[in-house]
């Protein structure tokens, strides 16, 4: 009907030429024709220039696959937009699709992929990177010790004159490397100090102490790994890698003890006694992240607690909001009720204020020490401090935010219920409560049930309400990542992004997928239910 009415209006105004497009409409129509063509060419050139530059950077960084992929996307763009009068739908769908794929579909695949990997704070590198990082980080002191005389060459660069403590062999240590020199080129003066060879000036006095920090950071690299490091201002020792990688056998070997660290297939090198090298790498571990939720008690406890609380939070928020909303709607649902419109406008104020602002304000209102609510109450309530009160607070604030929505929904639904049905029940002798229970409520639920399920699904992932009010806190007694009021989604967020206790992307992704299935099941049941209920009518 409405569509018909629109077409009537448009064609009538077209014919009588009284149709006046708004300024916005006239502005929009400027884009058609030649102007549009110019805009198109300019935009396409800009896109080519920018993406082309990115491809060059990608090639320079040796990310060949990514470079080719980006180039292919650019090619698709040019192909679609430069062919006249061909591939029309693609021209219109492409911009949105590219963004959709880049930031929605690729992330979904990425999340699924990550869920099967060990991917956490100490497992972010590739295996090759992890091997070299482990070797770099594990250096042990070697057997040699040198007497050191720090000096500078003519350009001011630091050069260490080194005398081996045991053999008496002499060296010059530069930032570029170690050079062996003839011991005869070095003299020892009457104080026992070393006089460096010609061209070098020994650092003395204030110069020496001023170079303290520079000396501490100075390293002379050795061939075959390791380095000579300074100790104080007059000594130096050689440091050698504590680990070696045996490519053929894929093991790391400790150079001093000979202990072997083998690849455990789960992103780490471990000894037979279970000792692990600190730096691991990303590795596929099958369903371990998924099963950890069931088998690993350290994961299971917080997960189950968060899961139970999520259900309790979403269910009580929705049921309380719906009940209160319906009750208020019923109060207002009376013919010729005074101030009806005023009341309704005032009651939906919480809906009109941006949610994040209300939540932050409630955080202040409920503050245990200074908050206004505790000042108005005759007794102090630990609203956000005590785990159980914090849960109560989260639910109360969520109800405050959600009730206006159900008030509006119920007012509309109540109006839609035919008056004759209520009248008929009354005539048959039913009381007010009976009419409400047996006639009004069932009819209302037909309309409202899908909305209740949708609201439940929404609150199931209502990150803001938890995170902005309590931050998921207070911390639970077992010191896990999940606080007392953490719902699954905020728990996942903390697992992935709050570094305090180590980030675990793999586990976070696995839990994300669990949440997806839960929400999808709820949405599907809501969908089926609304269909089923429609058919009932």
């Amino acid at each position, binding site marked *: 009907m409405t569509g018909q009415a*629109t077409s009537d209006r448009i064609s009538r105004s077209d014919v009588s030429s009284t149709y006046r497009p708004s300024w916005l409409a006239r502005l929009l129509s400027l884009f058609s024709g030649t102007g549009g063509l110019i805009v198109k060419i300019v935009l396409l050139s800009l896109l080519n220039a920018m993406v082309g530059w990115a491809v060059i950077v990608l090639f320079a960084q040796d990310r060949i696959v990514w470079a080719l992929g980006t180039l292919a996307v650019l090619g698709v763009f040019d192909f679609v937009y430069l062919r006249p009068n061909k591939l029309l*739908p693609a021209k219109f769908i492409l911009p949105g699709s590219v963004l959709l794929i880049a930031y929605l579909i690729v992330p979904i695949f990425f999340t699924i992929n990550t869920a099967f990997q060990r991917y956490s704070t100490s497992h972010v590198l590739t295996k090759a990177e992890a091997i070299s990082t482990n070797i770099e980080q594990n250096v042990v002191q070697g057997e040699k010790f040198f007497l050191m005389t720090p000096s500078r060459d003519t350009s001011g660069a630091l050069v260490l004159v080194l005398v081996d403590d045991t053999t008496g062999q002499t060296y010059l240590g530069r930032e570029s490397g170690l050079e062996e020199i003839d011991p005869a080129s070095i003299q020892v003066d009457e104080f026992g100090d070393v006089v460096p060879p010609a061209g070098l000036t020994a650092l003395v006095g204030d110069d020496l102490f001023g170079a303290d920090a520079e000396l501490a950071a100075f390293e002379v690299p050795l061939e075959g790994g390791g380095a000579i490091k300074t100790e104080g201002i007059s000594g130096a020792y050689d440091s050698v890698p504590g680990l070696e990688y045996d490519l053929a056998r894929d093991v790391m070997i400790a150079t001093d003890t000979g202990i072997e660290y083998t690849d455990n297939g789960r992103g780490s090198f471990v000894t037979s006694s279970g000792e692990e090298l600190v730096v691991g790498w990303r590795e596929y571990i099958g369903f371990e992240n998924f099963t950890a939720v069931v088998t690993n008690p350290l994961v299971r406890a917080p997960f189950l607690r968060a899961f139970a609380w999520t259900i309790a939070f979403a269910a009580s928020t929705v049921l309380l909001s719906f009940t209160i909303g319906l009750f208020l709607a019923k109060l207002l649902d009376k013919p010729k009720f005074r101030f009806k419109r005023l009341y309704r406008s005032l009651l939906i104020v919480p809906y009109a204020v941006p949610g994040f602002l209300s939540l932050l*304000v409630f955080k202040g209102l409920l503050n245990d020490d200074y908050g206004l609510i505790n000042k108005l109450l005759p007794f102090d309530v630990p609203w956000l401090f005590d785990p159980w009160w914090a849960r109560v607070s989260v639910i109360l604030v969520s109800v405050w935010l959600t009730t206006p929505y159900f008030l509006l929904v119920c007012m509309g639904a109540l109006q839609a219920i035919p008056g004759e049905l209520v009248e008929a029940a009354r005539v048959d002798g039913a009381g007010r409560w009976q009419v409400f229970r047996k006639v009004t409520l069932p009819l209302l639920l037909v309309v409202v049930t899908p909305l209740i399920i949708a609201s439940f699904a929404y609150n199931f992932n209502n990150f803001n309400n938890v*995170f902005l009010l309590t931050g998921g806190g207070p911390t639970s007694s077992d010191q896990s990542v999940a606080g007392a009021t953490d719902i699954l989604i905020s728990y996942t967020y903390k697992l992935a992004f709050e570094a305090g206790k180590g980030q675990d992307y793999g586990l976070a992704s696995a839990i994300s997928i669990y949440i997806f299935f839960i929400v999808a099941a709820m949405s599907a049941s809501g969908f089926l239910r609304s269909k089923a209920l429609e058919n009932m009518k």
Partner: protein
Amino acid sequence: MNDPTKRRGDDWWRHLILWVAIALAVFPPLYVITAAFNADQTLSGTSFLPRSFTLENFKGLFVQKEGGAEVFFVRWFRASIIIALLNAFFTVFIGALSAYAFSRFRFRGRRMGMLFLLLIQMFPGLLNLVAIYLIVLRTGEVVPALGLNKLTALLLVYLSGAMSINLWLMKGFFDSIPTELDESARVDGATPAQIFWGVILPLAVPVLSVVGMFAFVGTLNEFMTASVLLETVDNFTLPLGLQAYISTNFEENWGSFAAGVLIAQIPAIVGFVFVQKYIIAGLTQGSVKG
């Protein structure tokens, strides 16, 4: 029993309950107003009834106090407005382009595409954040302007939602625009692009306004994605900034925070007023024929 001629006096209990409910509903917003103008700027010093009037709290948002921390309120506000406007504009633009294709062209995969778009929305965007974070991190290594802590990257992530439920809304509205208009324009020699710009879009201003409005307000409210992608306090959007503002110095900053809350509501209200006249038409016309 339900006699409309009944005396009004018997309704006193309804009014009583409703007034209690109203008091609970408007209490926090009213409290923000009094706190914003209260001369005692601390949380503990606030009371529901203001004792004295001041504009100092508003000044505190814009001018750095002597010896106090740097204030970024203007930057947060500007960042939020810019990104919300851009997101609204591009969401409408990209969404309308796609909706036009789905409404006016017949091509293979059209029905599947529409259904797929509905399905994919079921995967809650929030769950993708780990992946989005890593993608943006990697992108930033190649194109720094699209990396972490950049509003441009945040905008692109928001725009991935442009082809969402909005598309269905717009397609429904476009379907209600009679195809005879396209036909006559085509007869006059207009290309599909010209029909889109010259015929469809001008007639679809109501639905475009509504979708733009939702995108605008939604962006102003968005917290989670922004908190993952933006890292330094000078680059924050309003929700992040205000949250950081009171979580660090809760007690002292309360007055200024309340003033900030008052100002932060302005954009959404202005937006609503601006598109108010279109809301009913934009929502109903699209849904009837959807």
